[in-house]
């Protein structure tokens, strides 16, 4: 045995097992201590970097108008309609109770909808009141009725005719239909707007106040969703005739965290205590080895998460996949080490010598494969999505730790544990040898067949569609997903688009020209098939114009066009007016003022109009759309604005738009990252294999599996979200490992043993074929466990990675060897030289 540094290192480890174990444990404790800094972040905004342009636009809109973070109760009476007295009572009760939800700033429902109307007795007495107060206020001018003071008795006392009138009012109000009630009056919603504390609120705070605020920020979503859940069950208890579903941004945030936590609680144990021990035992048939390996896997996971804590990384949904991924990655290291070790003992070596020999043989390959894997995961830093970067870096830490523990803690532990060696020879090698014969014999057929099959599958890549629909981040076992789908089908879309249209002039929105443009846009938007509802200030103004003109039906129009119908006749009283538009603008502004003056708390128009009345916000509810459709619609809207409102400052954004953009940008940046990683890894291979030709050739088995996997995905699934964009970088590091093992054995046969190409291929199959097969099975199983996640971003990532790795093995076995054996005297010469 040559006395190089690796051997010295190996001898040191096995002769000081307790010292090594103690040092390892210290390292684990030190890194794991960082876990106390881990915070679970529930805000969907974590998916966006601070300088993300759509996020900035969205925050600006949010800061200028009211925040639109919401929790929505969707209520369906099992029998009867929304306008049954019992249902109205329930909606009224919930609307009032919703004010008790932490951070509530606004509650919208049909019962507190603020109507404006006049009575025939006095056309100049404008009445403003909640829907349920309309009968009372109409009959009594001194009524003090407000939504909060409506009693159950009052609702019971409503006559059928009065209820019919209320229903008519609601169903004729564009602000309500398809937003908080469907046209059939069979589904309605209570929408709660909340103002959650966020990280920017920490500015200027210190010490205890900072800590308290921080805790408040981290627990806000949970507090809100718990309260919402409580109200949901209370409501059903009060009125068992109701089905109550929950959706909205807050519920989504909560679901991100809950699903991630559940994954960690269910998938990680499956991985650690079922899949990995079984797979390990099957491969190495040693209880001690299995136990030691599981320990280092647990160490690596703890260290990775602790390291994440030290790095200031927060727990987000993708981070919850870290334990499964690290566990899977860590297995391979210990397998290689233990298999050689046990083989040595089987061949009669002493425990110590067998381990030193194993370290000598495996140190370089394990190091090389670990470093390529780390490079692969570090490519995630090219991602636009901070949580994916975090995940890549955390796994990289875990893989590094797994490497360190595999060559220190594992050998040391094996020295202390009893090791029994079974004499049974594995049958696997016989299969592998016959398989090698088959590949060598049929190489002339295999090459074209494999090439054609690969190309055929790769051709299906375009069938994939980029899609980041955040509702579909959760599978159908998750309430949020089911409830949101129901809402989209029956009431209104959770996907929205906000447009802020700013004239940059105080009171500019009251210009008749602006109002007309706004109305045109609303009409254009409503014509788009993807649009379910458009909320715009024009609807408010039309209603006001009607009320200010004695509630005459024909005056339900914007002030200027209504002149033709004889509305606002006073403006034309003095015959021709020089600047009619100025008069109309003033009139419109004064209508806004009178309306503003009459609205109760939480029902103001700040959510639609900014404070100097220079700009307005339009809220468009969309069907469940794919990212491509969202981007397409966004394009159409911006073209419309460019053509019809060139002078306006338009800013459009929303969570749906943000996710649509990031999905796309992320794919491009990840492809760039993968390309860089390929270059880096190929250089590494050229250097390690000391062959330019083989280094270049290795590109084929390294790239083709990804392409084929995405082709298969296109054939069977076809939706690519941001979770999948990282698969290329991630699998690259793993796929390369197989190539490295196969090619290095092939080269050793050619160079050291002077075998011809066919014999060298057979040698490679004989030596690493079984190991590659087995580690691939472990990896595929591991990622399939991740595929069980209810969090679709993680489960798709797991499944596509599993496919990629399986394909990689097939390519390495069926395509790479025929390529190596292909004609190429040159190659032989070069290698021989």
């Amino acid at each position, binding site marked *: 045995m040559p006395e190089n540094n690796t051997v010295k290192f190996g001898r040191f480890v096995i002769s000081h097992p307790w010292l090594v174990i103690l040092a390892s444990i210290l390292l684990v404790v030190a890194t794991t201590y960082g876990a106390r800094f881990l915070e679970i972040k529930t805000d969907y905004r974590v998916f966006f970097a601070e300088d993300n342009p759509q996020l900035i636009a969205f925050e600006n809109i949010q800061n200028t108008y009211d925040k639109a973070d919401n929790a929505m109760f969707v209520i369906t009476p099992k029998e009867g309609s929304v306008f049954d007295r019992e249902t109205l009572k329930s909606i009224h009760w919930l609307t009032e109770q919703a004010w008790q939800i932490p951070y509530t700033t606004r509650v919208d429902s049909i019962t507190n909808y603020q109507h404006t109307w006049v009575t025939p007795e006095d056309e100049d007495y404008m009445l403003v*009141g909640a829907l349920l107060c309309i009968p009372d206020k109409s009959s009594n001018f001194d009524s*003090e009725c407000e939504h909060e003071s409506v009693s159950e008795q009052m609702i019971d006392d409503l006559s059928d005719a009065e209820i019919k009138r209320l229903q008519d009012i609601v169903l004729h109000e564009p602000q309500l239909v398809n937003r908080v009630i469907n046209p059939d009056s069979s589904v309605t919603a209570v929408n709660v707007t909340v*103002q959650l504390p966020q990280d920017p609120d920490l500015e200027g705070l210190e010490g205890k106040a900072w800590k308290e605020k921080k805790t408040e920020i981290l627990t806000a979503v949970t507090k809100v969703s718990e309260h919402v859940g409580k109200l949901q069950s209370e409501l059903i208890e009060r009125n068992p005739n109701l089905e109550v579903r929950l959706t909205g941004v807050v519920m989504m945030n909560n679901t991100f965290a809950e699903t991630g936590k559940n994954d960690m609680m269910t998938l990680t144990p499956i991985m650690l205590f079922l899949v990995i021990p079984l797979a390990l035992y099957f491969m190495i048939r040693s209880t001690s080895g299995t136990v030691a390996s599981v320990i280092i896997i647990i160490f690596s996971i703890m260290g990775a998460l602790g390291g994440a804590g030290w790095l200031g990384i927060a727990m987000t949904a993708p981070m919850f996949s870290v334990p499964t991924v690290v566990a899977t990655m860590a297995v391979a290291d210990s397998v290689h080490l233990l298999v050689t070790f046990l083989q040595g003992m089987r061949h009669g070596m002493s425990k110590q010598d067998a381990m030193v020999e194993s370290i000598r043989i495996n140190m370089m390959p394990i190091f090389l494969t670990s470093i390529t894997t780390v490079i692969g995961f570090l490519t995630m830093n090219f991602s636009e999505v901070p949580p994916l970067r975090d995940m890549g870096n955390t796994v990289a830490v875990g893989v590094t730790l797994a490497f360190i523990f595999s060559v220190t803690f594992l050998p040391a532990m094996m020295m202390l544990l009893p090791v029994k060696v079974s004499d049974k020879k594995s049958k696997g090698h016989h299969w592998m040898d016959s398989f090698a014969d088959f590949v060598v014999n049929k190489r002339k057929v295999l090459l074209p067949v494999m090439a054609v099959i690969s190309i055929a599958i790769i051709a299906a890549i375009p069938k994939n569609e980029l899609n980041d629909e955040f509702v579909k981040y959760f599978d159908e076992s998750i309430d949020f997903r089911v409830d949101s789908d129901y809402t989209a089908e029956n009431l209104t879309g959770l996907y929205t688009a906000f447009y802020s249209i700013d004239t940059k002039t105080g009171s500019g929105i009251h210009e008749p020209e602006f109002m007309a443009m706004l109305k045109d846009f609303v009409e254009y938007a409503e014509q788009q098939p993807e649009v379910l509802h458009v909320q715009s200030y024009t609807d408010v103004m039309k209603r006001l114009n009607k009320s200010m003109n004695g509630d005459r039906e024909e005056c339900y129009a914007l002030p200027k066009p209504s002149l033709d119908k004889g509305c606002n006749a*006073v403006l034309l009283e003095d015959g021709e007016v020089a600047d009619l538009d100025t008069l109309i603008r003033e009139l419109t502004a004064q209508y806004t003022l009178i309306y503003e003056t009459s609205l109760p708390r939480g*029902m103001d128009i700040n959510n639609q109009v900014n404070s*100097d*009345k220079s700009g307005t916000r339009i809220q468009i509810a969309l069907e469940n759309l794919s990212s491509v459709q969202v981007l397409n619609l966004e394009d159409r809207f911006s073209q419309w604005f460019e053509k019809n409102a060139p002078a306006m400052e338009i800013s459009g954004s929303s969570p749906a738009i943000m996710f649509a953009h990031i999905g796309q940008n992320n794919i491009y940046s990840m492809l760039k990252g993968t390309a860089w990683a390929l270059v880096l890894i190929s250089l590494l291979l050229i250097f390690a294999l000391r062959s330019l030709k083989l280094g270049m050739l290795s590109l084929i088995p390294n790239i083709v599996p990804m392409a084929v996997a995405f082709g298969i995905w296109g054939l069977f699934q076809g939706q690519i979200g941001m979770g999948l964009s990282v698969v290329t970088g991630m699998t690259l590091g793993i796929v390369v490992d197989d190539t490295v093992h196969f090619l290095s054995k092939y080269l050793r046969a050619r160079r050291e043993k002077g075998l011809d190409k066919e014999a060298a291929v057979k040698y490679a199959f004989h030596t690493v074929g079984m190991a590659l097969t087995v580690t691939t099975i472990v990896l595929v199983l591991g990622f399939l466990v991740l595929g069980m996640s209810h969090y679709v971003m993680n489960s798709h990532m797991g499944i596509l990675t599993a496919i990629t790795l399986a394909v990689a093995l097939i390519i390495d076995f069926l395509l790479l060897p025929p390529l190596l054996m292909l004609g190429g005297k040159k190659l032989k010469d070069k290698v021989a030289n």
Partner: protein
Amino acid sequence: MKRILSSLLLAVAAVSMTTTAVAETPEEKGLAIAKEAKARNTGWGDSQADMTMILRDKGGNEAERIVKVKSLEVKGDGDKGLSVFEQPRDVEGTAFLTYSHIEGNDDQWLFLPALKRVKRISSSNKSGPWMGSEFAYEDLSSFEVEKYDYKFLRDDELNGEKMFVVEMVPTYNNSGYSKTIAWIDQEHYRVHRIEFFDQKNDKLKELNMSEFKQYLDKYWRAHRQEMENVQTGKSTTIIWKDYEFNVGLTEDDFNKSSLKRAR
């Protein structure tokens, strides 16, 4: 003269109560402070002033409103007020007349110059924002002792002055608050700070008043009022200018027909 004398007596009584009272409950003490504050602000007759309102959203954008405000003291009921808009331009001349009442709805009329008409508006709502600001209508209407239940909480110090801290729970219908907490200075019984709490008892807003000036040797007026909504991050500043008392306003300046000529 009689009024002044009686309020003086009351003041003496109140001060002596705060120092010597033993058997007095916090509720009684709170009520006494409120009564004293009201007493010290009674008898001013009529006034007018210019109000500048600066609205700020969370993004830091500002909007300005200028309103001329006339007030008439009404004995035994809420005051009468007439606000005439000067800015923003499009609502110039819009006039807002209110008769506030201790019980029941306030009466409100709005004159829209573009429409040349006076519109009466139903106003059971008191909790809504006034002209889109962070001030609710109820924050700006006249203070009447009967509108709240009181509870003295503690003595405190604010900006170097000794304060009473009094909790006030609205007794009128349709308030947007579960309670407010007021800091009232012990020397002049002026309100320096009010914290507003929403229905779920979370802090909603904080109002700070400063730049006090005394008129007619008796009546203190804050010339700066800063209201911050701690839940939304929005804020509103009111700056008062050109306060004048005893300008000779009468009932006739506060009726529907006066609205049209208000500007």
